[in-house]
Every structure is written in structure tokens, then in C-alpha cells.
């Protein structure tokens, strides 16, 4: 391993870092990616064992605080009703994501103009459209063309099966006269780019042993590495250094044995998600940047957005898909756009969660009082087993400066690097949107024939989407990076992850994160001779 200077240094090998590495590889520059986690071995994923559900509570938990791998860093999220979910390793959180893969809508980039809230983005849907298309091919997206909730977009592969659950709920939406459509999914429904098609394992969120789910370790990275990019695992970055010209000079990191290294670089790119990226910037304190790198306007770590989630699940008196099949199924965007007759602005997407495994069924029933202790346990359990389906509502979260990522004064990771602290308050708008989503969701489930409905809002462990903490914009006073991801303060420092989102939309962010990363990479390529001007 050489620490000779490199042209491009990417921190983080997740969704965005992989996409950027791949698109920049054709430049033949020397590109190195530092990743604090490991390569994952799909043969060791939980779905290869009968204890696959249990491992969601240990080494494959979505919570770094529960998972406690040596490759994780702790997060103090005690001051938030929603806790952080992530994964650290090559592929990042795409290892554990469900693969729900919606695009943003044209309106999502224009919320100030349309609804007089938050800010417009410095780019729009048409700017990103070719990068969405390129990313769709690289990741392999299943879906059905013609969704009336979107401008026309092609489907790379056929949709995942409706199954029993999708049919029951589709009928429920039809009974209400509301929109639904097969979900766009980053899951291969046919063999694709060396990946096998989905085998309906039912365990997407603990890593896909089949390789059908498009985690970036098996999509972008093999192509990027073949093109010459180097990935160094178990390298945890502590801070980015700057020179007297306010240019990044490289990063200090710890290797697997805790040895400290300095890696010099011409360009440094952060791809560490909406918590990891501000953490590194805030840890990068110097005389020139006493409040953290790229933070002269104090916005690094501000405007943290999650997506507040509601869960609405119905119990039916007929067999459904249960533990089988990908969780992804259908979605509805009936309530996506602002409707002034409601008591909130913006909106949400319903994503149908097909069913649940035997352990999750037991815990759902026992913790909600529906399955008692004792002799009745068995009969009541069987009234729920394979008979639960429903949805989550993923609500647009608006940026608010008091929702923050800062540095915890005491908590540190295993290398002694200060850990992030989350301070987050659910807004009144989000609370009202969640309530509305629960009420409409109950109506849908009852129309579909549910005999009993269970709800939770917000989902306390649902901090999957981490956005907004180094927002993009043309005005250096009100944004951290410019309209193509370059820091206003440090002209060879870029951010390509969800931190740069101006608003969150009401959909999962990964497809847009990756399209943005490709867009930024393409802009860098076009400006190579004037990149730092």
C-alpha cells in the first residue's frame, strides 16, 4: 500500500462513492477510495442461515449502536425521536437497504417556487434525467414503464411480482380510487450484468446472498476496479488537511492496525452520507477553519433531514406472501404533492412492505398484545402468520437549521475519533403529515379487507435516509457546496452523498444520490482544466 499522492481521493465506498469512482475512472487519473469497513462476503449473509432474522438484532442490525462492528462508529442519537440507520463497508448502506428505488419528481427540485417552502435546488429534473438513466443501467432497475406519477422513464427490467400481497392491496387502492404502481426496485428480476435474478429470499434488508439486489459492491465497484480504481478497506479517515491557500492537501487516516497515515491528494471527495460527511468536516479543524472545514458560514451539519416514516400494517384472514419474496412490491403517490386543503405542505409515498418472517410476526404480535403468553400463543400466532401486509409512508422532511449533526464531546469510535451527535425534532408539518398518512393508510387496508390494523408513527428506528447537512446552492452564504458539489470554501473539496440535498422529497434517496454523483463526476470531467477556478 503506497501513500504516494493521488489525483482523486474518495472517502467512502457506498452508493455515491462507487458511482463517482466509476464515472471518473475513464479519465485515467489515479483514484483511490478509502473505506472504513470491509468487503462483504455474500455467502456469509444471514439469509444463508436459519437465524437470518435474529442477525437483524446483532451483526446485521441497521443500527450502528446495536451492530457494534469494529468497522462502525457510534452515533449519539438520544436527542432524536428517530435513530440513525446505516452500514459501513464496501457498498455502504446499500448492503442493507431494501432496494426501493424511486426517482425524485420534477416538482421536488422546485418546492420554493411551487409551495413557498424551503429552497429550490440549483439544478432540476431535466439536468439529472440522463444521469438517472445511466445509473439505472449500472444498478439494474426493475419496474414497469408508464407510471402516471412520473414523467416517462424506461424500465431496465420487468417489475417484481405482485404476489398475493400486491394483489390484495392493489384492490384496496382501486376501491379507494387512488394511485398505485409496481415499485421501481434496485433488484434484478432477470439475470443482469453478472447478477442472478431475484429468488424471493425475503431477506433483502440483511444483504442479498443471491446477488440480485443492487448493492454498489456488486454493481459499480467491479467495473470501477477493473478500470483502475483502488479501494482500500479498513481505512478510517480522521480529518482532511488544508494548506495556506485553502486547498485540501490530503487526509489523515488509521489503518486496520490503528497506524496513522497521511494520504496526499489533488482532489478530495466526501461520500460518507449525511452524518459521516459532516462528522469528518467538523473533525477537520485548523487555524484556517477553526469551526470545521468548509464551514465558514456555519452550515456544516445543519438542516439534517430524515424521512419520518409511518408504518400501517393490516391483518387479513387469508394467506399472503408472508416471509417470501422481496419486500418491494407496489407503491402509491396519490398524496405526493401539496394539497392546500390539507393541514400540511408537501407529501409522501406509500411503499408496500410485502410481509414479514416468522420471528417478526411473533414479535409484532407479542409486543402489540395480539399474541398472548401461554397456551393461546399458538392459535393466535397462526392467525397472523403469513397474513400480515401493509405499507410504510415515507414523508418529505423539510430542512430546519436546528436539526443537526455535531460532534459528541465524549463519545468516540475505536480509533478515538469524536463521534457524531444527532439533535433532531419532528416538525409540526411532519407530525400532521404522518397522522394523515396513517389515517389514509388505515382506509386503504380496510378497503382491502384487513380485519385489524397496526400503526406506528414515526418509526423510531427509521433513520435510514440522512440528508441536507452540507446542502448545495449557488449562494456561498446559504450553502456548503455549489451546484456541482464543490465546496465554496475549499475549491478542491467535493461532496457527492445525500448531505448535499437541498430538500428530501418524499421518496428514498439512493437513486438520486447516485444520479447526482454521476452528474458531479461528469461536471468534473468537463471542467478538468478549470476545476479549481
Amino acid at each position, binding site marked *: 500500500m503506497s501513500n504516494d499522492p493521488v489525483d482523486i481521493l474518495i472517502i467512502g465506498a457506498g452508493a455515491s462513492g462507487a458511482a463517482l469512482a466509476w464515472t471518473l475512472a475513464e479519465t485515467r487519473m489515479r483514484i483511490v477510495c478509502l473505506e472504513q469497513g470491509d468487503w462483504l462476503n455474500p455467502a456469509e449473509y444471514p439469509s444463508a442461515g436459519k437465524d437470518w432474522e435474529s442477525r437483524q438484532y446483532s451483526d446485521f442490525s441497521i443500527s450502528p449502536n446495536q451492530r457494534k462492528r469494529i468497522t462502525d462508529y457510534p452515533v449519539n442519537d438520544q436527542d432524536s425521536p428517530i435513530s440513525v440507520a446505516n452500514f459501513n463497508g464496501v457498498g455502504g448502506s446499500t448492503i442493507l437497504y431494501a432496494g426501493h428505488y424511486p426517482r425524485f419528481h420534477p416538482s421536488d427540485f422546485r418546492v420554493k417556487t411551487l409551495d413557498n417552502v424551503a429552497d429550490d435546488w440549483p439544478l432540476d429534473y431535466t439536468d439529472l434525467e440522463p444521469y438517472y438513466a445511466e445509473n439505472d443501467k449500472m444498478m439494474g432497475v426493475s419496474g414497469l414503464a408508464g407510471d*402516471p406519477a412520473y414523467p416517462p422513464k424506461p424500465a431496465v427490467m420487468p417489475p417484481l411480482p405482485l404476489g398475493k400481497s400486491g394483489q390484495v392491496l392493489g384492490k384496496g387502492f382501486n376501491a379507494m380510487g387512488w394511485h398505485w404502481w409496481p415499485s421501481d426496485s434496485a433488484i434484478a428480476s432477470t439475470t443482469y450484468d453478472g447478477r442472478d435474478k431475484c*429468488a424471493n*429470499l425475503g431477506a433483502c434488508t440483511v444483504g442479498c446472498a443471491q446477488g440480485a439486489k443492487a448493492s454498489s459492491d456488486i454493481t459499480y465497484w467491479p467495473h470501477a476496479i477493473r478500470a483502475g480504481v483502488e479501494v482500500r478497506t479498513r481505512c478510517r479517515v480522521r480529518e482532511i488537511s488544508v494548506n495556506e491557500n485553502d486547498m485540501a492537501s490530503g487526509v489523515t487516516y488509521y489503518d486496520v492496525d490503528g497506524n496513522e497515515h497521511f494520504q496526499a491528494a489533488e482532489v478530495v471527495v466526501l461520500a460518507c452520507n449525511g452524518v459521516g460527511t459532516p462528522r469528518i468536516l467538523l473533525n477537520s479543524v485548523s487555524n484556517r477553519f477553526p469551526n470545521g472545514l468548509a464551514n465558514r458560514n456555519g452550515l456544516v451539519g445543519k438542516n439534517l433531514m430524515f424521512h419520518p416514516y409511518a408504518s400501517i400494517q393490516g391483518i387479513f384472514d387469508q394467506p399472503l406472501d408472508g416471509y417470501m419474496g422481496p419486500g418491494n412490491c407496489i407503491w402509491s*403517490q396519490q398524496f*405526493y404533492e401539496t394539497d392546500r386543503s390539507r393541514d400540511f405542505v408537501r407529501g409522501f409515498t406509500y411503499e408496500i412492505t410485502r410481509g414479514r418472517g416468522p420471528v417478526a410476526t411473533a414479535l409484532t404480535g407479542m409486543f402489540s398484545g395480539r399474541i398472548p403468553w*401461554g397456551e393461546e400463543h*399458538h392459535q393466535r400466532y397462526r392467525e397472523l402468520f403469513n397474513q400480515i401486509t401493509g405499507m410504510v409512508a415515507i414523508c418529505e422532511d423539510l430542512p430546519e437549521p436546528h436539526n443537526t449533526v455535531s460532534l459528541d464531546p465524549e463519545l468516540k469510535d475505536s480509533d478515538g475519533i469524536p463521534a457524531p451527535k444527532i439533535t433532531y425534532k419532528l416538525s409540526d408539518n411532519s407530525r400532521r403529515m404522518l397522522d394523515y398518512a396513517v389515517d389514509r393508510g388505515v382506509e386503504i387496508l380496510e378497503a382491502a379487507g384487513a380485519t385489524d390494523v397496526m400503526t406506528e408513527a414515526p418509526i423510531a428506528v427509521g433513520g435510514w435516509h440522512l440528508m441536507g447537512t452540507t446542502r448545495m446552492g449557488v449562494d456561498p452564504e446559504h450553502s456548503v457546496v455549489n451546484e456541482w458539489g464543490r465546496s465554496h470554501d475549499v475549491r478542491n473539496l467535493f461532496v457527492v452523498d445525500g448531505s448535499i440535498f437541498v430538500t428530501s422529497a418524499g421518496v428514498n434517496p439512493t437513486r438520486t444520490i447516485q444520479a447526482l454523483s454521476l452528474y458531479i463526476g461528469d461536471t468534473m470531467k468537463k471542467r478538468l482544466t478549470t476545476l479549481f477556478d
Partner: protein
Amino acid sequence: MSNEETLLASDLPLSEPQREILRTLIGSIIPASRDYGAPGADDPLIFKDILVTARSYTDMFEAGLEDIDQQAIRDHDGVGFAALSETDRRAMAEHLSRTLNPFLRTLVSITAQCYYRDDRVMQTLGMEPRPPFPKGFTIEEGDWTLLEPVRRRGKLYRDVDG
């Protein structure tokens, strides 16, 4: 040598009296069912799995089981939980199930995790006793004509120009 001694490694957590309280408690949570041909959570194999899984919660389990035993001794003239009559044990279990503290939530979670991955239990549910991978499962394609009403209603997304 008892069955338990045969089954349990010497480094399993908890003292023998604590293990007996635990065995009795999880048998109260999920007892065997003759109707469904299902073992109870106190079945030796499942119990061993629970003990192994609970290793990382040893302190919590020791304290939680001690609390339950002391509660039984207080309320039943010095009789510990494992020695209660079936009627008294059921009544106490019913009370515990309505007042789930962090220990009991963890216990219920671990019990369910271990119980519902047991081959015999999976078979009583009509499942093949195997992991999801590599064989996977079959999902029916479904009736795509259900989308016709959605198609007929037409464009839903919001224009941003004009």
C-alpha cells in the same frame, strides 16, 4: 448426567437456579402445544439456543430473573418462581406479560428468535426447515390487469413549468 448437562456447555451463562427460573418462564411464554404438535420454548434444544443467544445479555438476565424470583417469594409465602403451582405460575406470567420491562422485552425477543427457527416449529407452520438461500421461494406473478383503473385516470405528476 442429565439431558441438560449433556446439552449445555460448561460456559453457558447463568447459575443452575437461574437457568431453572428461565426455563420455567419461557415455558410459560410459549408452552408446548399438543394441538399443533409444537414443542415449547422450554424444549431442551430450543432452551440451549436461547441460553447461547442470551450470552451477551448475561447481566440483564441475572438481574431480571432474580427480580422475578424475589417477586414470587414475596407474593407466595417464600416459594420461588420455578416452584410455583401451575395456577400461580400462570397468574404471574399473565401479570408479567402486561408489564414488559426492558429485560422481559429482550427475553421475549430472544425466545421468539430461537423458537421460530427451530426445525420442528418451522414444520408445524408448513415451512421447509431451511434457510431462505439458496433455494428461495416462489411468488405468483399476480394479475396486472388490476392496473387498468390507474392507467385510465392518467397523469398524476405535477408540472413545474408555466
